[in-house]
């Protein structure tokens, strides 16, 4: 009997072995192990690995593992695992490894899940429980199937193909692709750096009709030379002169004036066609003639009055000045709009002095609000809108002062330059000290003269001799680069000046 048993065993073993095919299982397990190791290494070593590839590889591995386990399970029921090498080291671990009982955490999880699932129906008989669970499973299964269908449809539409195969992506044909590439470059460069958007020179003229949102925004003359290329040509780097609508480049205007004038030019002043009178009034009172005698000072407040009175008188004088002025440069008639004003500022700069000559010579440019409304307002514009008035005259619209400025025709430039810096002159200058501290006496005396003339409009004659007037500082007229301008006799050059030159009373 003893011999039969081992024989039987051997036979069994043989059969089982064939059935089990343990060698095969071992090989498969080893292959699986190698595959997993390989994938892991790939993942760890390669930064650019695609998840799609790795996942697909893992899924393959997973499938084989599941298969192996299934195969073993089929036959493992018949066997009991008996550890062969139990020693001190693994005696504590083996039971855990061999146990088929779930780990405590897993067990907990399972019980809780079970509770959750059987929540509503645990009281019912088992059969019904089973049925209910089955129906639930079926519902979930159908949901999953439908979702799967949707996803696959979407994949088809998107051209993504099946899960594991990227699918065929339609390629743009080469021609189209290059065309699109060109267009793209065009678009990007246009947006980012403006390439292709630069206007040719012939299109750069200012538009006749502006879109509504730009009406306020663009002065008529702004567009002309508002392009970077124009910088080099004509525009003198005259920072102060950039105050006004600098887009307009005055191609020949003496920049001297502009360089000095502008300080306030850019500030929009309420230069409406108010006529000279209003500003005159404003200016009149604060204006103090430093060297003027008290009677003259008293007469000062009467200036507007006298201005008006002498209107016909001045209009006479103005005719000549206008001729004079016009002979020099063109002066745009209407001053209502600052736009136009600023646009023509450059042009006006030059005529400005002549203009001021005109006005000042008449000594009543302001009064001629009617006769010379434009001119008056122009000068106002020039002076006031620049804001220089504010600066120079300490905030007073000391218009009258400048107007009374008896500027010799020969020194047109000086007018503007002289007018403005004389801050002391206009603003409540208490005495001659201010004036003298300001500028050359040339300006002083001129102003004085004009003032005098102004306050005495009845004195139609000019005082040809400037020599009466202290010209101590004439040589200091460095501001304008025209030394001694004041020395030139006014009468000879400005017959239109109806102002009398009187020596400043002391």
């Amino acid at each position, binding site marked *: 009997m003893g011999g039969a048993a081992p024989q039987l065993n051997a036979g069994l073993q043989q059969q089982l072995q064939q059935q089990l095919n343990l060698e095969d299982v071992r090989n498969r397990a080893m292959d699986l192990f190698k595959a997993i190791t390989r994938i892991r290494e790939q993942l760890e070593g390669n930064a650019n690995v695609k998840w799609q590839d790795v996942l697909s590889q893992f899924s393959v591995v997973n499938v084989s593992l599941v298969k192996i386990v299934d195969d073993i399970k089929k036959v493992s029921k018949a066997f009991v695992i008996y550890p062969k090498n139990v020693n001190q080291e693994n005696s504590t671990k083996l039971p855990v490894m061999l146990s088929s009982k779930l780990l405590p955490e897993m067990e907990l999880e399972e019980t809780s899940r079970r509770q959750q699932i059987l929540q509503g129906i645990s009281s019912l008989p088992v059969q019904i429980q089973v049925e209910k669970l089955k129906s639930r499973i079926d519902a979930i299964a159908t949901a999953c199937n439908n979702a799967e269908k949707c996803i696959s449809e979407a994949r088809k539409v998107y051209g993504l193909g099946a899960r594991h195969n990227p699918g065929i992506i339609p390629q743009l044909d080469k021609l189209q692709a290059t065309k699109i590439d060109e267009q793209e470059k065009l*678009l990007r460069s246009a947006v980012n750096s403006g390439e292709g*958007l630069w206007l040719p020179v012939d299109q750069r003229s200012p538009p006749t009709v502006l879109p509504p949102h730009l009406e306020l925004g663009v002065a008529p003359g702004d567009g002309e030379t508002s*392009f970077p290329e124009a910088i080099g040509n004509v525009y003198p*780097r005259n920072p102060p002169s950039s105050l006004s609508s600098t887009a307009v480049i005055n191609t020949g205007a003496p920049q001297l004036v502009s360089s000095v004038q502008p300080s306030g030019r850019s500030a929009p002043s309420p230069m409406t066609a108010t006529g000279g009178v209003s500003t005159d009034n404003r200016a009149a009172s604060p204006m103090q003639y430093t060297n003027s005698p008290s009677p003259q000072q008293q007469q000062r407040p009467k200036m507007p009055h006298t201005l008006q009175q002498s209107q016909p008188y001045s209009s006479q004088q103005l005719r000549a000045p206008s001729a004079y002025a016009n002979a020099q440069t063109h002066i745009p008639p209407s001053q209502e709009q600052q736009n136009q004003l600023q646009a023509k500022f450059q042009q006006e700069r030059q005529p400005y002095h002549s203009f001021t000559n005109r006005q000042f010579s008449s000594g009543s440019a302001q009064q001629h609000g009617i006769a010379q409304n434009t001119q008056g307002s122009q000068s106002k514009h020039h002076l006031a809108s620049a804001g220089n008035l504010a600066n120079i005259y300490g905030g007073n619209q000391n218009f009258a002062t400048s107007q009374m400025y008896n500027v010799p025709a020969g020194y047109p430039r000086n007018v503007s330059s002289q007018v403005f810096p004389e801050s002391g002159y206009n603003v409540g200058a208490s005495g001659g000290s201010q004036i003298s501290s300001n500028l050359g006496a040339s300006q002083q005396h001129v102003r004085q003269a004009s003032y005098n003339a102004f306050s005495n409009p009845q004195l139609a004659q000019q005082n040809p001799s400037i020599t009466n007037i202290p010209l101590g500082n004439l040589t200091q007229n460095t501001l304008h680069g025209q030394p001694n301008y004041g020395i030139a006799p006014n009468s000879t050059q400005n017959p239109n000046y109806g102002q009398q030159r009187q020596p400043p009373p002391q």
Partner: protein
Amino acid sequence: MMKPKVESKECIVQGIIETQHVEALEVLLQGLCGVQKEKLKVHELLLKSGSNLGTSSEVRLLCSLEQPEPVWTVAHIGGALKGAASDQVSALVRNREDSRVSSNALRFFYALGYKLDHELLRVGFAFHIQRTVRITVSVTSVHKIPKLHAIDEAVPVTPGLQLVEVSAPSTSDTYHEAVAAISSFSEFLAPLLHLSKPGVTTGVVSTASGAAGSLMSRGSSKGALS
């Protein structure tokens, strides 16, 4: 104690999309953002102060013409982040300061010595969406203006392509967040277009037609869980 002014920056990516797919993109953005689109019509003027002495600056005047009253904004778009830091981020990070201005801003800048370099007109729409930062997606057709300020005669630079810009504001410290938000949002748009830093061409996306088709479809599916 006065805190130093934190530089305000803009993180931006650009992409292109074929004009035929713009509607689909709009549908997609509508779905993603959930708000109404904002129409855009912006007359953009780039002014440069061309100082021969050295530093020149540029300033953009943006006039939004969509509302009944034009809204003027001045934007200073400055230098971009450069160097190693810029290579790590997928968006362009550049300085940007915006400010509302009055309608005579153009004259003001002319008076300051700025000159018009070029102008363009952008017409399109924009969506805003809050994803940790406020992301703005704008899809516009860029028009060039043939004559000075002649907006009505503007023609598209590329009729077949429109520009898509995704941008978000940030400070110099927090731009990583903004860039990350932009990147993640850009992924949603991946079926229709690719976005990249300005200046980097992307080409069109091959899946665009398919994606556009499905977006424009009236929903043929019978429901996921019937």
